[in-house]
């Protein structure tokens, strides 16, 4: 038996097919979800993919958050369903208040696309259990609005509770507070990050490495063993 992992397509989602591919390569069953459809089709976990949903108009993720599919996802995420938000998906998660904080425009004001080194700061989440604590991984980063920010109290809380999941290494690419690249909720089922693990799952494309595979094998193991 395997696990069903859904990937939502919003209008303007771009890395949705890549996330579906990564789910499949990890051995789980990929399920395409549509933004207008409240039904999650019995998936066990959801990936909110990268892209520019609704053109990032108004504010990245601000419109997608109100889509029908998100109503169900927000409700089930609060009940413990694992959700991974990648880049624009992370922005949707903060707009939905499933994760704290917000993303500002990169401090250098340019889109940035690069191979980014990260450190796994918390391997206790639903999406990171296949990594070693402190493991350094290379994951592509590509965004315009990637500078994570939150008020000091929230940051202190995230740090104190070990909810910073990934930190940028070898230079901060966007000015995010405390080099934060990704965070989790208190329960550890909802994870958001700016870099794109789905583009580091095959040796021949993307970064040429497979450091991103762990996200998808982590969730598969957790769901199958549940």
């Amino acid at each position: 038996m395997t696990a069903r992992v859904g990937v939502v397509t919003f209008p303007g989602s771009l890395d949705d097919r890549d996330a579906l591919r990564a789910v499949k390569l990890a051995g789980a069953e990929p399920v395409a979800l549509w933004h207008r459809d409240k039904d999650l089709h019995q998936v066990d976990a959801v990936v909110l993919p990268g892209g520019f949903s609704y053109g990032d108009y108004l504010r990245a993720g601000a419109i997608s958050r109100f889509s029908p599919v998100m109503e169900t996802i927000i409700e089930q995420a609060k009940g413990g369903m694992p959700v991974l938000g990648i880049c624009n998906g992370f922005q949707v998660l903060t707009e939905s208040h499933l994760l704290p904080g917000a993303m500002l425009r990169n401090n250098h004001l340019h889109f940035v696309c690069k191979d980014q080194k990260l450190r796994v700061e918390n391997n206790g989440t639903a999406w990171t259990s296949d990594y070693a604590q402190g493991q350094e991984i290379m994951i592509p980063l590509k965004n315009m609005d990637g500078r994570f920010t939150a008020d000091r109290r929230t940051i202190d809380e995230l740090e104190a509770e070990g909810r910073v999941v990934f930190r940028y290494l070898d230079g901060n690419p966007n000015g995010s507070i405390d080099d934060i690249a990704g965070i989790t909720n208190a329960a550890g089922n909802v994870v958001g990050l700016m870099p794109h693990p789905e583009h580091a799952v095959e040796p021949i494309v993307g970064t040429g490495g497979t450091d991103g595979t762990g996200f998808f094998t982590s969730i598969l193991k957790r769901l199958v063993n549940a």
Partner: protein
Amino acid sequence: MTLDTVKNAEQTPDVELPWAALGLKEDEYLRIREILGRRPTGAELAMYSVMWSEHCSYKSSKVHLRQFGEKAPQSDAMLVGIGENAGVVDVGQGYAVTFKIESHNHPSYVEPYQGAATGVGGIVRDIISMGARPVAVMDPLRFGAPDHPDTKRVLPGVVAGIGGYGNCLGLPNIGGEVVFDSCYQGNPLVNALAVGVMKHEDIHLAKASGAGNKVVLYGARTGGDGIGGASILASETFEGGTPTKRPAVQVGDPFQEKLLIECTLEAFRAQLVVGIQDLGAAGLSCATSELASNGSGGMRCDLDDVPLRDATLTPEEILMSESQERMCAVVEPEKVDAFLAICEKWDVTATVIGEVTDGDRLEIFWHGEKIVDVDPRTVAHDGPVYERPYHRPSWQDALQADAPTAERLARPATGDELRASVLALVGSVNQADKSWITSQYDRFVLGNTVLAMPEDSGMIRVDESTNLGVAIATDGNGRYAKLDPYTGAQLALAEAYRNVAATGAKPLAVSDCLNFGSPEDPEVMWQFAEATRGLADGCLELGTPVTGGNVSLYNQTGTEAIHPTPVVAVLGVIDDVTRRTPMAFAEEGQLVYLLGDTRDELGGSAWAQVAHDHLGGLPPKLDLDREKLLAEILIAASRDGMIDAAHDLSDGGLIQAAVESALKGEQGLRLIVPDGLDPFVFLFSESAGRAIVSVPRSEELRFTEMCGVRGLPATRIGVVDGDVIELQGQFTLPLAELREANTGVIEALLA
């Protein structure tokens, strides 16, 4: 203002129309009157003026472009040739690939961000209208002098526009070029290429057949942007002191275009479409007249049904508007509901605006009155054709005589001088690392990018199960073409061909973007004639047909034209992308071989520009048979695992390529000057038909035997080793020092 209907035009033959302001010449206007047998209505005049503009009708270039068809090599790979939205090439396993390069030069000078952004949008719509899913874009760019203040305005805007549009559209940007030269000061070149993939059975052509079929306009609403863009902007030279033409540049919305891609491909998959045409230059005028003239019947449209962004637009403006992100589909009546449902699913506005008719007329109505009644072929295909006079420029002989000999230009002689020259070259703006630009483009999206800049060509996996892939490179060298346009065009072709082969792919087909000055200048026209002749001859000899492309003329300010700049894109196929050859020399101990012959060829070279700001003499000689042989060797060596890395030699010569491969692989090189070669010539000559490769020791014998048997000179010039580049007996350069010189150059310019 009263509506200028067809009836009104018949009754008021003497009304003066603003044909000159719309960019028409007097004889062209008279010809329109002759075709119609009356004066045109305002709407008809608008249509003819845009469709007969240089940009849309190719009136000055047509007589020369014919050679691409007449001299086309026999190729089994061609599925659709010149004349459609984009050519289509068979890449095997049932897949077809369509690709095309276009210019968006003038708009990008006026409004860099939107000009460049909509250039990407336009070329992508050409690809989707063929039925293909776009899979990548590339952008060859040319800017003015690096230290000119206007370059600081144009470059960041163009780069942000390409990134802003392409990234939001979700297409990986996998290559291109960035060149600086003061000749492009008032006329930056912003060329855009897109490539798409489909199955053979999914190829669609733009035509409107079958009386009763509906014409559906879908995508963005029509607004006042870009009115007259094609006729005014792309077809007239910029003159000082005239009012700003900013409103003629279109504004792009990549989010809308993303929806358009998904919606169009879904409609194709559901077999709901007879024909499709994107709305680019000349907007609805172009789409309706081209669809109708490529089909079997006529067409009638009601402009009242066109969804508008601005309700005050006149019918003439609606016809001329170049609002972006619009497409026109011809759909059988019983399939219209299903088509509209797909548009609704993707939140795309779609409206039936007309239908295909039995007759042979294109009729357009406004408020129930007929305002256009023309034979669509006279609008779309029977535009004027000019045999523009041309002659060899008076200065050409003197330019070619000014060769960069050792007597004319001082050459570095000692090890220290050579070392300093290498640092100056790799730190010069044209040879420097371009990652400030390319890091603003998403190269990962869609998950099939095998190679991207700065590799010799971009490579995309087409099939995830078989690993079939395509590679594309674009190249052009205006300096070579200025010295000799015929050879310069062929050198651009040869370089792109070589770049594709260097990554292990077999070159199949060509698309070209011909950027020149004013065709009304006989000397510019000679450059154009020579370059097209050279390109057509070259394509014939290499066996790579031209599948389509674009001509951009009037790239000049006053009497000062740009260097003639034919940019050539070559597309190749690779059966197994896991065999691709990257450029990085990454394995210590591997042997470095130089393939090809090195001669004292410095005319138009990067060294001459960097060291002496000199342009003169002749460009490198070209031997197309040698290029073919080199390509075959590079492909075979890749397929059979004989080489681990390869890098083509072009501007900057051997040392530039060696430094790039070493920096990318983070490994040093110990190099030896081959017997009989002068160290300076060895390092800086730009002789064509060459590449450097990195060969595992275990493969050396097999590789050199293959080269020997095939008759390709292969010279062992060194070994991958250490963390310096050393030229034995001459100089040592630490990688760190080279990296410091090579990076941060663009940032420093813009700071």
